[in-house]
């Protein structure tokens, strides 16, 4: 089985986010980037397929040279090869188009992408890849078993889970549940050293339209100070929750 894990290079959740150029550009100075958590759950599941079922695992990302540390981490965790598509990931369609092109040429049986990235939260990439490649698709996938070309996937639905029987080739939009957080792997020293020797292919982007443009970014309003309400003053508590917090 040949697996492609799509990796998005996203800011660490604890990074301080700032904008420049009239709030139209994200200021990346001093920001630590990581593997998108939903992609990391998928990568960890792919490593399980590698170790238990002998799968080959490639990872791919769309981005400039500054994204290489992120895919090197995937190699250090155990992926066999990496592909960097040398282009700025301008929007979801553009990214999906690039990844689909790589996937088409690579002959993959299983394509795993996170159900959404935690920076722009577009949530469209895996679905568009499946459409462009005309492959089966399971989104919000929380469990995946594969036997030969048969796949059993569980996806999260409103209020519960749905188990789906499908077959390879397959695209999934993965998330937590594919593996648990405690299963995520921290690259060890040997893995990091070996990652330096693994292939990291840089390919040029294929022509694709950018469908959208950022007009303006806004941060959420700053949180106000905490208001303490006396334990017996239920009326004031209700009034504050209703009129100020608008929670009830």
């Amino acid at each position: 089985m040949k697996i492609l894990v799509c990796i998005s290079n996203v800011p660490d959740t604890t990074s301080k986010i700032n904008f420049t150029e009239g709030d139209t550009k994200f200021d990346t100075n001093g920001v630590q980037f990581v593997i998108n958590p939903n992609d990391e759950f998928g990568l960890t599941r792919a490593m399980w397929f590698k170790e238990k079922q002998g799968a080959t695992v490639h990872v791919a990302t769309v981005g400039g040279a500054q994204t290489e540390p992120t895919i090197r981490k995937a190699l250090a965790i155990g992926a066999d090869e990496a592909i960097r598509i040398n282009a700025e990931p301008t929007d979801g369609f553009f990214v999906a188009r690039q990844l689909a092109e790589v996937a088409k040429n690579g002959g993959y049986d299983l394509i795993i992408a996170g159900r959404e990235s935690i920076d722009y939260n577009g949530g469209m990439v895996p679905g568009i890849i499946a459409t462009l490649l005309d492959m089966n698709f399971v989104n919000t996938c929380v469990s995946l078993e594969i036997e030969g070309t048969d796949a059993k996937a569980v996806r999260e639905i409103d209020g519960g889970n749905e188990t789906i029987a499908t077959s390879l080739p397959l695209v999934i939009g993965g998330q937590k549940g594919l593996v648990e957080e405690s299963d995520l792997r921290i690259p060890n020293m040997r893995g990091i050293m070996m990652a330096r020797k693994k292939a990291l292919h840089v390919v040029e982007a294929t022509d694709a339209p950018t469908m959208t443009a950022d007009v303006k970014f806004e941060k959420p309003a700053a949180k106000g100070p905490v208001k303490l309400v006396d334990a017996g003053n239920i009326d004031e508590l209700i009034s504050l929750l209703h009129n100020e917090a608008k929670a009830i």
Partner: protein
Amino acid sequence: MANEYIDVETLKFLLNEVHDLEEILNLPEYNDHDSDSIDLLINSVKDFSDKEMYPYFKEMDENPAHFKNGEIVVHPQVSKYMKASGEMGLLAGAFPYKDGGMQLPSTVMNALGYIQEAANNHLPGYIGLTIGAAELITHFGNENLNQTYVPKMLNGTWGGTMCLTEPQAGSSLSDIVTSATPDGDRYKIHGQKIFISGGDYQGAENIVHLLLARIDGAPAGTKGISLFVVPKNRPDGHGQLAPNDVETVTDFEKMGQKGYCTTHLFFGGNGDCHGYLVGELHQGLKYMFLMMNGARIAVGRGAAAICAAAYQASLKYAHERAQGRKLASTGKKDVHQEQTLIVNHPDVRRMLLLQKVVSEGALSLVLLTSKYQDLSKSLQNAEEREKYALLLEILTPIVKTYPSEMGRVAVDNGVQILGGYGFCSDYILQQYLRDIRIFSIYEGTTGIQSQDLLGRKITMENGKALQLLSNEIKTTIKAAMVMDNLQAYAHTLGDKLQLTQDILKSLLGYAQKGDYERFLADATPFMDYFSNILIAWLWLDMAREAQQALLTGSKRHNTTFYESKIHAMQFYFTYELPKTTGLAEIIMNDKALTIGSKQKVFGNEY
């Protein structure tokens, strides 16, 4: 948990920009690594520390190691951490490829150790001593000892210790009496050792003690001390272990680092404790001291890390706790205003800035000393190696002492920021304060380090090390002179170098007259003085690098980050460096009030 206990961004700034790690990675010995892979390694060790270390920090203090039914009970995470560290490569990292290591430079290993110690300083000692013991075996032991012990130590299966101190021989190792009696191709060991960190703990399959003992008939003093491998359980050569007559007497109850056991061991109570000689006869202390630079850097690193973690904790509190109001222009407070966060009070900011300059200054010193260690070992040119060996020698007592002594002061200020809560176990600051206390005692007390600095290192090779260090400082001063906003600070540092010459002239006068007691009597105030100036130098260098980055528009960090480094340097030069004037006055006093044993200076009681 981004900055919960460490500021990784500052660690990377110091490592890559200020101390130019690339220069080390370009050396043939280390060029299998590059700055990207080191960056990934740092992130990995931070993740590892978040997962395996920080969550157990408070628990280990609340559930101290203790002696029960003949063994030491420790937190269950100790054994898990040992194993996980082995898998992570943290034990083998610095060893050469031939010994199964990853051949990482000391600068990187100390950066990784720093992260771990900031996360939970009760744990890294277990692997630190195992690494030290394994290093002694690989450097000086024979092939058989290497094959028998080292692989299991480096994969975290077996622990290691250093057994030096005895009840009657602490700082004075020449007085040890543990004996080694020849018994075929091995020795029978008999004696007791105290203050043995990581000496025994539940769940350890084996512990390999590197023990100093005196072979029967050996010369008196330090020249008659040999080094032995003494395992808790001795391998029988067929994959089995047999008890080696090493008895755990007790575990010391301490004020801090309670999760890190400190044991009293008795060797050979039943006459059946085997020891295996490491290297040559009577060379034990020499072997130990060849490893001492690394051990002392590690102590300074641990203190710097605790200091940094305490800073993060008090910084967080100061940004959450509202108390009091800012003074209005009338000089009064408006009680109708909402209370302000305590970080807005100048006195709290002063204490936070003190924590910042001490913790980051200490880290910079640790990384610079580590760099000198790498260059002294791995440069191709022998003359250059010699230069950095001398710089390493002169900085070693300081890197051990400054973070331990000033780190404690900084943590104490962190407690103060929390007010009454700082004194309560609900908050972590009190634990940091108790934990850091031991660091000015470990591996040679401050008094011993200070005498080493003034009595040996300053004067060694006719002051060559001091001259080399002065040249390094002058290089920074020269570079800072061309930056308008740093020029005044560069001048001030130059003046302090001149003052140092005056002090040394005064002190060396006593040595020349043969009055060594007077020469060294105020070695500790001299250490305070000299280390203060070195940290000023390192802050000027950080500010120079930050200013350079701002001028060139470096994208590695944002503007606020770089500006904060320049501000911190200004604080250091304004609030810390001036203390050297008073210290100079103390050091050059002619009253000799601490010398002499006959006068009743303590009144009639003694």
